[in-house]
């Protein structure tokens, strides 16, 4: 089962989307989106892993010692996390506005787009 970590990442994404689809609460939906996105972190880091490797930082050890994990996907994961956090903030701000204007945060009760 050497591919189990990749499948785990896919499972996290599907669980997150299931949460969004069945959500009765916008805050819950935003958190589910964060769960979905964390599946991509797992996938990226799993692809970058290397058996017996350590972190790709060379400040306190010689460059040609142990192998290191893939720094490219780790940097992408960092980008992913930053974008995810800011998008979460933006969506939560939208949820605050919806709650103020409509008095509900149940997506099932939001019918039209006009306010």
């Amino acid at each position, binding site marked *: 089962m*050497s591919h189990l970590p*990749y499948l785990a990442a896919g499972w996290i994404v599907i669980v997150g989307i299931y949460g969004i*689809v069945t959500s009765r609460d916008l805050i819950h939906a935003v958190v589910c989106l964060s769960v979905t996105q964390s599946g991509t972190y797992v996938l990226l880091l799993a692809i*970058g892993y290397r058996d017996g490797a350590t972190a790709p930082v060379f400040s306190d050890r010689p460059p040609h010692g142990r*192998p290191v994990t893939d*720094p490219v996907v780790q940097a992408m994961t960092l980008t992913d996390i930053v974008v995810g956090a*800011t998008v979460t903030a*933006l969506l939560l701000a939208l949820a605050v506005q919806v709650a103020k204007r409509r008095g509900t945060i149940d997506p099932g009760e939001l019918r039209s787009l006009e306010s």
Partner: protein
Amino acid sequence: MRTRTRTLLFAAGAAGAAALFTAGALDLPRFGGAVHPYGDRAVRQALRESTTNTISSVNFDQRAFDTIGEELILMASAIGAVVLLRVVGKEAEDQGAAHRHGPAEVSDALRIVGYLLLPVTLLIGVYIIAHGAQSPGGGFQGGVVLGTAVHLLYLAGDYPALQRLRPIPVFESTEALAAGVFVAMALAAAGAVPALNGAVGVEVGCALVLLIGKFFEQALLVREPPGGTP
């Protein structure tokens, strides 16, 4: 769409997506395998530029253009959230120092710990940014530490002091300035990793302070007028 229909639709889509994803994932290289051509090249390049933290090198040197995009996403969503959370006409805003806000009944232990940790956390944030090119850390991580450190004052129960410590307009202009400096530097001198780290750290810190500040405003300051919502 009824909930049941929606769930069925999701189940069909999820089953298809799961099958395709599994088929794709089984063809990926083995987990933990030794073949990482891009990683090896990135490490070699980082060591050539003597940036010992390869991830900082990838973010601020080898992929600095991509980081510009990330920066602009960060700034755009911070602006979006600030615009969405502004105090609109029919809402009134409390005077900041008019009364005690937040967890008024803070125990002395929490208060002392908050005040003691504030300078230490700020220092750690600056260290993580400044040393990000050499050791684990960098502008994004350190900026988050800086942005949240300020809010230890809120945990210590001193919301007026927090408001004095972070004048929102100053942070707004600083964020825009840091974003501009980052774009200019990344275009002109990609590879100046410590300087780019600094610019990103300032921008992330300011954006976080702005966002949390706006959410605090919604929770603590904004009052609906007596008429209530329409």
